[in-house]
């Protein structure tokens, strides 16, 4: 895993435009030496310093607040989207509203940046016409961060995926014979949905957690970037090219941090599904 990150971070060094003409040049030596420098810099702490503009900053000092910001949005996004996704997914599977399914499907395929820009635009439009500011459209300074809209954006897109996923497997489960049997024995709708069908949907939710996390993370990059939030992805992407060119150390450190966050998020969601199973499985 770590080797993969180190290679990934070396890609911008390795793949370079050819000095003359329009071709490509593969600079294996450059990639190799940045990796060597990175390991050498561990002792002196050189690998944990980077340039932001022309100012040299310490990675350890800067990463704390960024880590907290990303962790905050990731946790809220993951838990809210998963809860909403499961509950609304059940609702969609049970309801007969065809238009609802169509709208969900279409918004599900729209790229996340479109949805974020649309949300920002709606807020601006309402503000320009009624002078009512519903939410901050972007953070202008670290002291006054935009909160409501980023949370909304961090929830909507993963939740949409979860809803469609749960609804699909729920409607499959509901067409099975054991549901018929439970119904014949006079069990209530709620009991059948939550205690008979849902336990058979949860394995699919578990199996698709990586995909869910992938969507959540891709979306989180967009949220941090478009709302100008001071998170890990923003730190990496905005300072990857410092005053003296590409900063391998920063990118490698940043991606490792993102991996740590991914692991935390994934573990949390596994725990979350485990909780559902504990309650529902009898």
């Amino acid at each position, binding site marked *: 895993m770590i080797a993969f990150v180190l290679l*990934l*971070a070396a*890609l*911008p*060094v*390795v*793949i*370079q*435009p050819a000095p003359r*003409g*329009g*071709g*490509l040049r593969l600079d294996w030596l450059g990639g190799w030496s940045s990796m060597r420098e990175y390991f050498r810099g561990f002792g002196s702490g050189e690998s944990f310093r980077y340039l932001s503009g022309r100012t040299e900053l310490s990675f350890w000092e800067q990463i704390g607040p960024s880590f907290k910001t990303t962790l905050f949005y990731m946790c809220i996004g993951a838990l809210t989207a998963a809860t909403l996704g499961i509950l609304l997914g059940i609702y969609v599977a049970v309801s007969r509203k065809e238009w609802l399914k*169509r709208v969900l*499907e*279409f918004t599900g*395929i*729209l*790229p*996340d*940046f*479109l949805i974020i*820009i649309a949300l*920002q*635009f709606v807020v*601006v439009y309402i503000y*320009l016409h009624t002078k009512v500011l519903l939410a901050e*459209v972007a953070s202008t300074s670290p002291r006054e961060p935009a909160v409501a809209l980023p949370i909304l954006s961090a929830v909507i897109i993963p939740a949409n995926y979860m809803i469609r996923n749960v609804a699909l497997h729920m409607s499959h489960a509901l067409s099975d014979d054991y549901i018929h049997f439970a119904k014949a024995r006079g069990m209530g709708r709620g009991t059948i949905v939550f205690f008979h069908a849902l336990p058979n949907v949860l394995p699919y939710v578990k*199996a*698709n957690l*990586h*995909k869910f*996390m*992938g969507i959540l*993370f*891709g979306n989180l*990059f*967009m949220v941090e*970037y*478009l709302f100008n939030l001071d998170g890990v992805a923003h730190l990496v*992407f905005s300072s*990857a*090219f410092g005053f003296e060119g*590409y900063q391998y150390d920063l990118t490698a450190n940043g*991606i490792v941090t993102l991996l740590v966050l*991914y692991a935390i998020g*994934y573990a949390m969601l596994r725990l979350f599904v485990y909780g559902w199973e504990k309650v529902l499985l009898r």
Partner: protein
Amino acid sequence: MNKTLLAGLAITIVLIAASLLGPYFAPHDLSEQVKIEYVVGEDGKGTLLVPPVPPSAEYPFGTDNNGYDLMAKMLAGSRYTIFLSLAVAFCRVGIGGALGLLLGASSGERRARTRSRPASVGNLLNGIPMLIIVWMILIGVSINPSASPLAMSLLLAAVLTLVGIPPLVFTTREKTLVEMEKPFVLSARSLGASRWRIIWTHLVPHMKESFAIAFVQEIVLVTGLFGSLAIFHIFVGGTTMNFDPVEYLSRSNEWGGLIAQARDHLYTRQWLLLIPLAGYVLYILGVHLISVGLERMYRERFRKVSHLG
């Protein structure tokens, strides 16, 4: 053909036609530029004309900050957006589908014992956002490149094709394994049909519908990636970066690029953001409707029917 499919096809065909024929009918071309000038109207009143010009009869989509016609830019960019997404989707499904078929057919013969392992690898692959991998590969070469926009677009297309193949291989392999278990394949095999014959005359005809749907869905995914990459300064066709002030401009006017470079126009000159956004959403909507319509058509065609009546 159902209404959804027709609507989707209509939207997509209109967009393709506009992209191919539009430049011949458009009022302005890419080289025309509105300069700052003082215009005296018929009533003797003078107005100062400063780009950007808002949408008007003369400039239906308005002009950009430098005075270039937005409609001409969108027509030029549509070729990249539409045809490149079609090409990448086609290559992804062609190569990924073929590999998946081969793998599925050969491991299906050996009574797939290892089915769970590759599935979980594919599962983990899903967790890595494509965006970050493509960004890492391309950021070193995309800013102020010396190669032509077309060459840069082809490079991006090749990278997007490569990263898109593995997921398709996994899903096609899974589907093929299911087909391999079916009675007609078993009977063909027991009659001594070769692997190629099974693939060509039994598996491909059975799976061509799912390939068609996968192709359409890949178009949507690729178009989405064009836009997402553009937000992070990688434009289809390469990025022109100016340092004073720092700004990133698209060289090809691809629609995702037009949106990304007008991202700050939420408050003023909103047409610069809204018009490319509308075009982009319309294209995605058209393709999406085709995919939904195809799914419905195939479901109708292959559903079980009553044997009486």
